């Protein structure tokens, strides 16, 4: 699964740590999600969508093989 969290963060101008605080996870978790190593749960994805004020599909996207 692809995601564009980095871009969304840049638009909103927040760091990984700030995003982590907003959705109550560790900064490391944000980093693993951004680098595509970990696919977050639906709860976390929805929380992120709420922070960025965008629908989940705009942040996460299926890719071939999913």
């Amino acid at each position, binding site marked *: 699964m692809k995601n564009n969290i980095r871009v969304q963060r*840049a638009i909103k101008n927040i*760091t990984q740590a700030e995003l982590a605080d907003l959705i109550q*996870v*560790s900064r*490391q*978790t944000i980093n693993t999600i951004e680098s595509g190593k*970990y696919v977050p749960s639906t709860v*976390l994805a929805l929380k992120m969508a709420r922070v960025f004020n965008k629908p989940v599909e705009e942040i996460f996207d299926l890719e071939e093989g999913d």
Partner: protein
Amino acid sequence: MKNSLLIPNKFKVIGWVIFLVFCILGFFCLTKEFRIPGFQIYSLKNINENSPINFADYNLTNEFAILGITIGLLMIIFSKERIDDEYIAVLRLKSLQWAVLVSYVILLAINFCFYGLSFLMILVYNIWTIPIVFLAKFNYSLQRLKKERFSDEK
């Protein structure tokens, strides 16, 4: 998504203290034949000595040591991390899976390397293989996670 099996983070320290103290007790119990005086079950004197059930060891020190080490280890592995989010939960489950597998590999290796009484002795220690391998693997994963480089430009 609450994991009700986990206990608060402060039990990690308590668990380590219990584990280490009882490890020392177990060590002295095993090597120096240390027994806590009076800490035993007294049986009736005129038990039939030819009885096939022969209680050779009435003292509870070694049982106490096994109990303490086990409870300490369980406290360590079931306590939450300081920041316990869902990725940590994934790491925890992966480490547990890994630990079960490794402990069976160890058990099978022991199966072919030891026999008789020493095999039984090692089986006794084997009750702690899963928690110890789990701890090693889980903490290794956490360390690697901490060391990961951040690409954190604004």
